[in-house]
């Protein structure tokens, strides 16, 4: 796993700086539901010194099929992602679970198919979640952004457990002017989304989300931030159903200073 600064990694001595070519995988939910997150990711990456490309042939990572036990369907979709991002030095994803799908599960998905297993492993090795990429690979320490709010951060499960996203968003959020970050006791507890789980078992899902919401409310936060659109849509949807005015946003919007749009599910 590359962990050095992309600039220094590719910087020839005494020569012009080569900007690392990053393929941005915006993910299906950002593409469809919240383009702002895609533009925020783009802005953050460019400001961190990356040359960003957004392949038009990208769709989804295949997670819905994979988690439903439809490996053949997942492979079909995964092949489009592998093909779309074959030539990039890094692939960056504003979602812990989509990044985890590629990093952890793509190699599993193609086990036994030598050609695609190799190509999947190559993609897996260069795929990063956005905020951890900015902090760990680009060496970003602070951002120029302002948001006057009290916020709490929700650790989405795959980001936390598959991609090691924990300290990075908190460190960068600490540099956002006007933002006070409060830790929830249940920050690492699942929000109850779980992909298709939340529509198959809505009652159980809502009960899980309510634990999360009680924790959010207990922190006194006015804004919930996270790195996965699925979790955020679920949390926002349940908050609104319960009449709460707590705002929900993707962390990239805040870090990029693009939190001027209405929050998720907000008017």
């Amino acid at each position, binding site marked *: 796993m590359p962990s050095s600064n992309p600039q220094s990694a590719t910087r020839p001595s005494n020569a012009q700086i080569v900007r690392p070519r990053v393929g941005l995988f915006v993910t299906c939910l950002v593409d469809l539901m919240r383009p702002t997150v*895609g533009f925020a990711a783009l802005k953050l990456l460019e400001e961190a010194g990356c040359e960003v490309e957004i392949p*038009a042939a990208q*769709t989804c990572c295949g997670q819905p099929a994979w988690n*439903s036990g439809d490996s053949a369907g997942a492979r079909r979709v995964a092949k489009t992602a592998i093909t779309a991002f074959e030539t990039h030095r890094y692939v960056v994803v504003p979602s812990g679970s989509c990044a985890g799908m590629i990093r952890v599960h793509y190699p599993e998905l193609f086990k036994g198919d030598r050609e695609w297993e190799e190509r999947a492993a190559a993609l897996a090795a260069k795929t990063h979640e956005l905020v951890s990429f900015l902090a760990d690979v680009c060496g970003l320490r602070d951002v120029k952004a302002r948001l006057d709010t009290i916020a709490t951060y929700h650790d989405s499960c795959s980001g936390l457990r598959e991609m090691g996203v924990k300290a990075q968003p908190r460190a960068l959020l600490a540099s956002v002017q006007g933002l006070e970050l409060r830790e929830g006791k249940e920050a690492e*507890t699942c929000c109850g989304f779980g992909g298709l789980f939340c529509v198959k078992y809505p*009652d159980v899902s809502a009960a899980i989300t309510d634990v999360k919401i009680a924790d959010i409310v207990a922190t006194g936060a006015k804004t919930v931030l996270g790195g996965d659109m699925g979790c955020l849509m679920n949390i926002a949807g349940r908050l609104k159903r319960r009449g709460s005015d707590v705002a929900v946003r993707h962390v990239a919007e805040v870090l990029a200073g693009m939190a001027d749009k209405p929050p998720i599910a907000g008017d």
Partner: protein
Amino acid sequence: MEPTSARFKNNAREALDTPTLQAALTKLADGFPGRRRDAIARMPEFERLRDAARAIKEHTLDHLDVYLETFEARVNANGGEVHWCADADEARRTILDICRRAGARTVTKSKSMISEEIAINDYLERHGIRPVETDLGEYIIQLRREPPSHIIAPAIHLSAAQVADTFRASHTRRPKDRPLDEPTALLDEARAELREDFLTADVGITGANMLVAETGSNVLVTNEGNADLTHTLPRVHIVVASIEKIVPTLEDASIVLRVLARSATGQDVTVYTSFCTGPRRTGDPDGPREYHVVLLDNGRSKLLNTEFHDMLRCIRCSACLNHCPVYRAVGGHAYGWVYSGPMGAVLIPALIGLEEAAHLPNASTLCGRCESVCPMRIPLPRMLRAWRERQHREKKISWSARFGLTAWSFVAARPRFYRPLTALAIRALGNMARNRGRFRRLPLLGGWTRVRDFPAPEGETFMTLWRDAAERRGQS
């Protein structure tokens, strides 16, 4: 017990609507995970112990036949007997047979999940033998004729008031107006009731946290000491254990013990840890005259070398239950059979069939917390997914879900279709939202909007906006 796993949704709904259960589950979530965290913080080598414990189990499973036969030879040499039982029925008949030969009327029992798995209590009762559970939690649920709702805290679903009511209803020879408000009063009463049974029981049945091949011993951990009274006082000791409980040596057992209590209750070690090795020898002051091990397979050997092989490393500590958001929401009974939580959702389909237990692997967010706390590092989410894969392969999911998935992956694998189709759909959805930020109801998304609003899309897709921006850049 008759499984109700097929009714998981109804079970869950009932559980969510039961305030005493919800209060108990909140208490559980506030207790065990924190205590586990503290116990591990006191032990810097915990992660290495996990690896060591896992390696022991992996090695043992790779040589299961050898260690089981070594175990049997040692038990025989100690003067005991091993009974190999392929399934629950064979185990039940074997146990009844031993009890009958001993002329047993009363059988004391310490906590054993395998005895739940084979439903031995009902069976013995039907054949005129009275089984008495001696673990406090098990004793309570036996009086209530309920299955356990948690591996190590079987009556966790009950409040103290419910237990008091149960005792009043069951212990009818005691004064009606006795105070039972304090937990210690409940404990004292259970002790007094159990004392006589301990002394008169003809047979004691225990489970086994481990079986040790090199010595032919079974290991028992409890916090109440009831297992020791169960296996030392009666004339006959029957151990019921499943085949994967075996470890090669005492040294191995001690390593597993070091991760077990810490993962389970957050104790450094349980209050009692006992090693039983055969019947009473000449000169021993106490102990049973007969020592039997009922060794149960019940489908486990069929899991070897399959995608569920790793499940056989499970030591039943319940860490996965204690950290599972689904278990915390609905408790153990919703799973509809003996086991529950993530380990139950993996194991139950293997033991009672995927058809009956079809909901269980699906009723999980795959959040991965179970795997992160499992002392044996069992990849539980991966195995839940493996069951889903089998359901999909065997066409055991609804036609509509299957069609939906196939249609979706067909389109998502073809960016040239996907792009205009999604752009159109999102534009339509955006128009429907008419500047509201969310939907209270949406066709085809009833499962979502039943409990939460659906966020409205911002308007156009990112790809549309990006393409438009690129065209503008190209023109300028």
